[in-house]
């Protein structure tokens, strides 16, 4: 796929909108080339590329809304989609909460785009994997993914919004398994492919795999813990999907409901949604065409408020923060997808060195939330769970089940390391779409509720 650019995308949208019979309308376009090379047993087993376009059209007639999506950008097809959406709206019922389509506003320049990354081909991807495989010890085998995404988003509406931005994403992960040991995992995520470090990823994953032998089972209980970046990203995801959207707060489902301005966790925890940070992967406007704003969510443990789309903002008497999400994946109400958690300067050695007896968690698998209002997460660890004693890693552990409220966990933050770009397990394959700038942390207390077999 080659980028169409602003004119070639926005012109047909504007042309189609000019002829719309609806009272209001908007169109969001997402074009994407997704190239994924997967490997296991140090051998590529799947190598796929797809080019796709999705145009989502909303037409509003008398405050009733119809939505139609198509994968064509031809003016005739867009006009047909607008007419169909208007017909759906006419057959529907008015939405008293309809906030109207967005007004034009300036938005920040796209920052997460690298032309060379967008041009990366199959050979470049397999080359990175070959470098991972070459660096893994002969007694071990590697598996994982190399992914390049090139995408461009555009929004146009009948009030004159005309927004366009391209972006790229590069991702490399390695899970290394030993013949006589367990597994280790590492990954790099960026919007520039030339910043991926295949040898570094291989060495980090291999290092952990080599430590993962002679596992012991940990008794359930409360332990000091070091959470690496991927593990913290998983906790942040649970906070996002359970409590950071305006509609969740309004409905009483969020940990913030009725508690804005109150202390909800420890002073060392500060979280914002910041799609404008040049390190993250983001488009600077949302699917409604509203510019994304930086939103303080929790400051030094005090709840500051959620993110909003236009509908939830109207219901709350607030202003949209530019957090309308893809309607095919998320319920309306605001979605915080570019989380930035404040970090500090502690090194990995300092984090581990601060633990008397506790655990190190690399990442989680298949987490969920048994108590959304408390932002409680349960999930098992994987690919690098270790016992720390007297400031040193002393044993490999069988994977453990962790179950705890994020607010209780973050109340116990004692040390923070520097931020790194990372995604939770769900977002790493596209089930979610959250990207985090997140530090590793040492906490006073993590609740372990069970252990997998050895």
């Amino acid at each position, binding site marked *: 796929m080659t980028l169409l650019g602003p004119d070639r995308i926005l012109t047909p949208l504007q042309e189609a909108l000019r002829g719309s019979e609806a009272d209001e309308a908007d169109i969001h376009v997402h074009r994407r080339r*997704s190239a*994924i090379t*997967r*490997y*296991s*047993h*140090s*051998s*590529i*087993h*799947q190598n*796929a590329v*797809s*080019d*796709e376009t999705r145009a989502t059209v909303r037409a509003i007639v008398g405050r009733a*809304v119809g*939505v139609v*999506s198509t*994968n064509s950008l031809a003016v005739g097809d867009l006009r047909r989609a607008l007419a169909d*959406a208007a017909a*759906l709206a006419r*057959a*529907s*019922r*008015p939405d008293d*909460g309809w906030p109207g389509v967005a007004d034009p506003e300036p938005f920040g320049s796209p920052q997460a785009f690298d032309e060379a990354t967008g041009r990366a*081909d*199959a*050979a470049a991807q397999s080359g990175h994997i*070959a470098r991972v495989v070459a660096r893994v010890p002969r007694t071990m085998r590697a*598996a994982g*993914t190399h992914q390049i995404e090139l995408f461009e988003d555009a929004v146009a509406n009948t009030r004159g919004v005309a927004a366009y931005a391209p972006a790229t994403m590069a991702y490399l*992960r390695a899970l290394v*398994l030993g013949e006589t040991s367990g*597994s280790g*995992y590492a990954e790099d995520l960026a919007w520039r492919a030339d910043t991926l470090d295949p040898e570094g990823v291989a060495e980090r994953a291999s290092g952990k795999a080599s430590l993962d032998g002679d596992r012991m089972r940990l008794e359930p209980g409360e332990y000091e813990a070091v959470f690496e970046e991927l593990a913290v990203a998983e906790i942040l995801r649970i906070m996002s999907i359970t409590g950071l959207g305006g509609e969740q707060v309004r*409905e*009483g489902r969020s940990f913030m409901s009725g508690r804005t301005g109150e202390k909800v966790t420890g002073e060392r925890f500060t979280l914002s949604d910041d799609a404008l940070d040049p390190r993250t992967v983001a488009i600077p406007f949302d699917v409604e065409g509203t510019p994304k704003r930086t939103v303080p969510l929790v400051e030094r443990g005090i709840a500051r408020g959620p993110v909003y789309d236009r509908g939830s903002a109207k219901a709350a008497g607030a202003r949209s923060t530019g957090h309308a999400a893809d309607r*095919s994946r998320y319920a*309306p109400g605001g979605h915080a997808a570019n989380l930035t958690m404040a970090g500090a300067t502690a090194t990995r050695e300092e984090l581990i060195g601060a633990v008397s007896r506790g655990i190190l968690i690399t990442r989680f698998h*298949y*987490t*969920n*939330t*048994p*108590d959304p*209002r408390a932002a409680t997460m*349960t999930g098992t660890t*994987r690919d690098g769970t270790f016992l720390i004693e007297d400031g040193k890693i002393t044993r490999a552990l069988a*994977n453990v*089940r962790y179950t705890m409220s994020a607010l209780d966990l973050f109340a116990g933050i004692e040390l923070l390391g520097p931020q790194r770009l990372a995604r939770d*397990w769900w977002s*790493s*394959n*596209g*089930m979610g779409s959250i990207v985090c700038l997140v530090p590793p942390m040492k906490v006073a207390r993590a609740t372990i*509720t*069970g252990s*997998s*077999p050895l």
Partner: protein
Amino acid sequence: MTITSSPLTDLVHVASLRGASYADARRVEREHEVVSVKDGAVESVTRTSDRGIGCRVLHEGAWGFAATDRTDEAALHGLIDEAFRRARASASVQRRKVTLAPIAPQRGEYRTKPARDPFSVPLAERIDHLREVDAKSVGPNIKTRRSSVAAYRTQKRLVTSEGTDVAQEIVETGAGLSVLAVKAGRKPASRYDSRLVRQAGWEYVEHLDLVARAQRYRDDAEATLDAPLAVERPTTLVFAPEFLALLVHESCGHPTEADRLLEHEVAFAGTTFMWPKDRGKLRYGSPHVSMTADATVPGGMGTFGWDDDGVPAMRTKLIDKGIFVGYLTSRETAGALGVPVAIGSARAEGWQHFPIVRMVNVSLDPGTTPYADLLRGVDSGLLLEAPASYSLDEKRQNFHFSTQSARVIRGGQLEGYVRGVAFQSLTPDFWGRCDGVADDWELHGFLSCAKGEPLQLMRVGHGAAHARFRDVPIEARE
């Protein structure tokens, strides 16, 4: 190459001429309509459609796959070029070549036969029905009510270099219901179902009786809000089929996917605890527990004419009287394991996806005991009706489930509710505690089983009956 009126055949022909040892081309068109109502008002009316072509080549023993939603000649030429570039790149980092288990060429058509096409039901009728349902969800503490109906149509054609040419049209209809009860000083209580979906027409929505279901969900949520906290202890649990459908999915369907053996999913979805050496030996559950994969179940969300390898629909046993006996396979995984294809389970969500091993309809086989008799055998226990949160480890061995609704069983009778019930267990230990499966088998459907990279959301079916499990340690959490 000049693209003719049969681009799939052309693509496969050209790929063969260029040296592919196997090639296939798959065209998929999908459409989808959803109407949803929230708190009495229409929340959204959405119609989605997409179409495109995916082309898979096996060259130098390695796969390449390319897909596009453009159908012009240049795009289709580019598709073949890109698929070969991908295959060559795969071959450059490869230690074992792909071999496909053989199947005979297939030809034919498969179509769902809905009694009433869900797309033909007037929008006003759908909205009016949902508003009636919504009205029955109103309760003193019900803060949010949502309901929806959905219609799906998928048309696809698969042509392979081995002579297969099959066309399918699948129509599915579903509904969703949810209520959230909120009361000061109490933990909010949700009751919902997003798994009411069937390969069928509008008649399935009528069969569901959403109005009665909405009343039941409202009553469950209101009662759970005020219910006492459960007591943590080993407890006899009876599971409703709706709950067991998910347990079967997570703890049997996933670990029997054969691509997990090849570590194709190790970095993301994980592996399994059910290895080839365990086949025929591993005690997975009690003798009451048998599970079957069946792509022929009428109305199943995992029912089709052929999978995306072109393998015709089959059925096979996965668990037989508690013993692990079978896998879900694709031609590639069966080839790698050196076994015949026992069931074709290679499925792709859409034209843009590479087919991988997925569930079809994976079900707990029914028992012979009437449900009432099963309940009568419980002096003190709980009926768990629907799952809430669920989480599993990467081998599908260590799991944690919580429930939306837990009803107290005393002396074989249902009486009242408790809240906060969850349980964690190891798969063989859990299924080993099953001491009875009822005869009231029913089919459930899931729309979005997540697996693969890029993510593929697959439709799968699961049948189950009420079943009883003894001495399951439960957790009770506020």
